[in-house]
């Protein structure tokens, strides 16, 4: 059962990601990415990361990707604007991709034995492992410092985004 859920979600996630890359229409692209993320959220829940899984749906699918949609619709982008891809560059990137992919897989399989070596360190996880409460407790105690840093980070991002996206009126020119 667990394995079946994994394979279904994994295929949906990878398929959604692939369609997102290959799709020429940006709106459809975003929708495929949302599909992929929802499948990932299922996997996260299966990995007993309830909080991260729900964040993924609420923050990613709910906020960030909707923002992407807004921008696409604001700019009124359509698929036909895409130019045909250059074949030379495409070949190079495909090779990079394949090499990276193989490298990773080989290494991962070889590395498989590693966690079993460490199983003396392993303890049984508590039942609410990864729930909202333990994560929140940690965020406000042990990880308070990076948590506060992200507040600065978000402030910077807001300021930056407002500056970049704001349309400046040239009223100052007149005053000079």
């Amino acid at each position, binding site marked *: 059962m667990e394995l079946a859920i994994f394979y279904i979600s994994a295929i949906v996630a990878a398929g959604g990601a692939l369609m997102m890359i290959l799709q020429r229409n940006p709106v459809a692209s975003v929708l495929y990415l949302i599909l992929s993320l929802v499948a990932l959220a299922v996997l996260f829940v299966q990995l007993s990361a309830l909080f991260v899984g729900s964040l993924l749906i609420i923050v990613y699918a709910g906020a960030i990707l909707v923002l992407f949609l807004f921008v696409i619709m604001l700019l009124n982008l359509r698929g036909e604007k895409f130019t045909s891809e250059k074949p030379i560059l495409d070949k190079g990137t495909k090779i990079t991709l394949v090499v990276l992919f193989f490298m990773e897989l080989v290494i991962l399989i070889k590395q498989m034995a590693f966690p079993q070596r460490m199983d003396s360190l392993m303890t049984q996880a508590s039942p609410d492992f990864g729930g909202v409460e333990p994560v929140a407790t940690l965020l406000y105690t042990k990880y308070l410092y990076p948590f506060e840093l992200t507040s600065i980070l978000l402030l910077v991002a807001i300021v930056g985004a407002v500056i970049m996206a704001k349309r400046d009126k040239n009223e*100052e020119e007149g005053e000079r």
Partner: protein
Amino acid sequence: MTDQNWSILIPEIFLFIWALFIFGLDLGIKRKNPKILGYSAMAGLTITGILLAIFNGGILFKGMFQSDQLAIFFKVIFIGSAFMAVGSSFDIASEKIRHHRGEYYGLILFSTVGMMFLSSASELITLYIGMELTTIPLYVLAAFYKDDKLSVEAGLKYLIVGAFSSAILLYGLSLLYGLTGTTDIVTMKINLSLVFLSYGKIGPGLILAMIMVIAGIGFKLALVPFHMWAPDVYQGAPTPITAFLSVGSKAAGVVAFARIFVNGLIAFASDVMKPLDWGIIVAILAAAAMILGNITALRQRNIKRMLAYSSIAQIGYVMVGMVAASELGIASVGYYMFIYLFANMGAFTIATIFNDKTGSDGIISYSGLSKTSPIFAAYMSIFLLSLAGIPPLGGFAAKYLVFAAGIQAGYTWLVIVALLTSVVSLYYYANIIKTMYFSAEEPTIKIHPSFPANLVLLISVIGIILFGIFPGPILDWALESAKIFAF
């Protein structure tokens, strides 16, 4: 949690609040007087420096924030580069940046705060957030000339490359976490050694993790082969921001690299664990950076692109000290960055002033500068000669130390490459000096920098000459800061 000495956070908190204060000040003066903003940013950085001298030394949040000597040494470099970037921004702030001047200065300060947090991080999560806090303001600053296509293009390229590199870095960090079960760098070192001692080998996952972390930080450092973005971004971004990118942001990358590799993975540079040595990978990249950076710089006609390639080569020299991974190696890296701060910021400040006056970045337009503005031509010559490593300027002592550390650690071939490429670099640095002094063209341009830019230039020249002749104090301090790593 009771006996924590919270006061060591004061410099960072002060600078953060000061950045907010500048946002407010800009509104308060109705966005009219850019000079007040610039001066208050400089004042804020100066006060932060003073606070740093008072409140330092200690550990907070179970070691997540470390105010050790290495962090303080690099924090001084960050504050210095931000100070100089602000100082050289006065002219463009009154002419080219018509909107959001407060935000311009505020974001420089925010980025500095990020660098300061980054240099104090001894744990992967804080390290990563510090790194993002450093770069996100820089994305915005690179695209700050909103109507200038070159600047917007620079911002876009920097954003894509920056986000791409942090994704790769993160993948590497996640593998490191998976291999050790911890994000604390010191615990990571202990766990890895334990596994190694009990099994005699560590899976190839560690090599992949190391390559990905090197690639991720290499992008930020513009280390070859991850350097392609640098010339474009350097050319398009506002020149003071380019200077800040090439000094502050690189120093931040250097300190992150030192924390992860020299502190966390140091065991793997020793002979016992030779197959997992990261030193050789970095040494090859450093050699490539020195060769490619210097040779490409030879045929640049734009001074910002030339300085971009020159800074790619300079980071190669810094990495020679880094791969040595000894006390002298880290000290020489610190000293090199310190001198590089003065020389590179100075050269970019002249480029800023010059661009303001003439609207041109072409090297050819510097011809005859010695006749109209002899002082600035002399300044520029000092900066360039220091970058080339001519005695008795600071650059010479810095290169000497780095090479000594390299030879001490057995990287003789790398030092030979470094020496040869230094000779090549002399050619293009000297070419600018030749253009300034011995050009037949009739000089037309006279530059009048504003007072803060003059101050920045003066500080840089004094720093280069003083610390070149008397490297003692800075070197002692750098050696002190290198002691935090257990070699």
